[in-house]
């Protein structure tokens, strides 16, 4: 049993390493993989240092953050359709980001991550309030999030139409892109990733109990409300930090947990870790493709994620 799981983890990790190296080699300028790995340690290549290494690390961290966030939300909401994008967190972040781009075009650019994180937090605060005060059940919570997300999307579309000059910048942000990111962006999300992860692992066991249903969980002594709130907050923080750096990248939170479940079963500690790995893998591969398909054109990563992720996801769906 354990052997089989380790084997699966092993394969995924190896795949991630391969795509990481590929990520370092592919781009407008082809760098020999061995060179690339060597330079990783010596740090003498400008292109690698400035662009590729930060992007690769960012892809891995953001990929896993979004995926784990999705896994948490699916656990709390107990709905397989849930993910930060579906329940309105991504949309809330998008709304604040686009508003800032459109309404304050002369604002310094460092406001953007700040603002989008605030947007995500707002939406999640509404949702958390609903759990705290009304103890809203899982699916209903997801639906409310969906509705809020839809309202945000409508307003975003309105802004896009009214300000066609800045529509381009906004669209790129909305799709999600790793373009132009440097080590400073990695440093923004890294500490939070490091801090959140242990807390999440601690709660994984509780999440398993929660899946049995609210009533059973309460009977077993779990503080249902409190746990839901904490987990939701953690999920939002992971997703919010990622989105604030990368833009409205959607989909990872939705499909990675599903793929993970097919591979490692239903214990949440495994689902969480595997989701993170799968998310990192998908984003990493997508980033390679985004840069490599048609240099020097750099396709926004969000588009590639959809193209890469969806067919695999549907294939899995079929297998049921």
């Amino acid at each position, binding site marked *: 049993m354990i052997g089989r799981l380790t084997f699966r983890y092993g394969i995924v990790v190896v795949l991630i390493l391969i795509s990481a190296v590929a990520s370092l080699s592919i781009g407008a300028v082809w760098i020999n993989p061995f060179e690339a790995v060597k330079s990783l340690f010596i740090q003498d290549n400008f292109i690698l240092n400035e662009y590729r290494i930060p992007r690769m690390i960012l892809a891995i961290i953001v990929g896993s953050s979004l995926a784990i966030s999705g896994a948490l939300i699916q656990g709390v909401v107990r709905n397989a359709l849930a993910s930060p994008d579906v329940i309105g967190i991504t949309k809330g972040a998008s709304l604040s980001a686009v508003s800032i781009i459109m309404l304050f075009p002369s604002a310094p650019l460092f406001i953007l991550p700040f603002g989008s994180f605030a947007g995500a937090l707002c939406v999640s605060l509404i949702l958390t309030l609903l759990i705290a005060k009304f103890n809203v059940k899982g699916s*209903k919570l997801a639906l409310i999030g969906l509705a809020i997300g839809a309202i945000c999307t409508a307003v975003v*579309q309105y802004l896009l139409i009214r300000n066609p000059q800045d529509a381009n910048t906004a*669209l790129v942000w909305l*799709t999600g892109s790793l373009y132009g990111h440097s080590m400073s962006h990695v440093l923004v999300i890294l500490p939070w990733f490091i801090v959140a992860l242990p807390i999440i692992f601690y709660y994984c066991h509780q999440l398993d109990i929660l899946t049995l249903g609210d009533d059973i969980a309460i009977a077993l002594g779990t503080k249902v409300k409190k746990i839901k709130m904490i987990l939701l907050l953690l999920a939002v923080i992971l997703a919010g930090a990622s989105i604030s750096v990368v833009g409205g990248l959607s989909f990872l939170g939705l499909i990675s947990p599903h793929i993970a479940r097919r591979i490692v079963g239903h214990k949440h500690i495994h689902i969480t870790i595997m989701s993170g790995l799968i998310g990192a893998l998908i984003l990493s591969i997508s980033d390679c493709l985004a840069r490599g398909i048609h240099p020097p054109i750099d396709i926004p990563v969000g588009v590639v994620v959809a193209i890469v992720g969806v067919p695999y996801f549907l294939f899995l*769906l079929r297998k049921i």
Partner: protein
Amino acid sequence: MIKSHSVNRTKSNEKKAQKRTTLTFIVSVCALFVIIYFNLSVGASHITFQDFIDYSVKHIDTKETFLIHNVRMPRMFAGLLIGAALGVSGLLMQAMTRNPLASPQIFGVNSGASFVIVFISMIVPALTEYSTILAFIGAFIGGLTVYTLSGSTKGMTPIKLALAGMAIHLFFSSMTQGIILLNEDATSTVMFWLVGSLSSIQWPQVIGIFPWLVMAFIGAIFIAKQLTIMELGEDLATSLGQNVKVVRITVGLLVIVLAGASVSIAGPIGFVGLIVPHIVKHYIRTDYRLMVPLTMIIGADLLLLSDVLSRLIAFPFESPVGIVTSFVGAVYFLFITVRGVDRL
């Protein structure tokens, strides 16, 4: 004694229900006429009641009647037809999947059609003449993919269908966004269309989709009785003699035609298909033979009203109608979710 009481009560309940139904129909049709008038009169150009008389009764040729005939009328007709079409397609989907969240938007039909249209206009513009037919194909591909990938008829649960639908929707819309981003100069112009807009619709386009929609409407009314049976549940329906598979396929085709035609000339207008059936079900719950026509009327009401609003928000500037329907639709959606929908 008691028996006759209950029979009487049932009879009076029935009468009440009938009264309510008739009232609903009358009110919505009247609303339709009022809204049509507003639809035709509100706008950047100044058009008065006198102009209408000139147009319809006296047939005079003035600048205003010219505008009424060539700009406002085709647009109003399109709004009427498309509103009805989207409403009915939503109703059909919700019945078929027994999922109150179903709508052509969520099921990849809209996004498949939009993808094809954007693809044509940006990458293969030579094919623009065939966009309507190609939009059907796009809608078909979207819908078909969702259908097949959610498993065979036996294994198709609402969740699996919803999941597959969401995935296909995201897939197509990402690709659409990708094409738009890579052809940046066209971005602002395509964005307008991509939200769903009734502006600049001309008679040839309306005439183009008219036959398809009329056929689909007739088809929907015919199949209404089967829908009522289908709502009871698959096993019950089969035991009552219904050929579930055939009904499903027919309904699927109708949805594709209704949604595909609408998207091909107006772009993907969201939420109408989701909201209208809910409104209708408030008043009539069971008999699809009544629900289908009412959906058409209320769908037309809603879309035409949204069109009027879209012309007012940023007067004299037009906003795409899709924005109004999205916003209003989303708020209404939030409302019904929070209020606690027993049907969910």
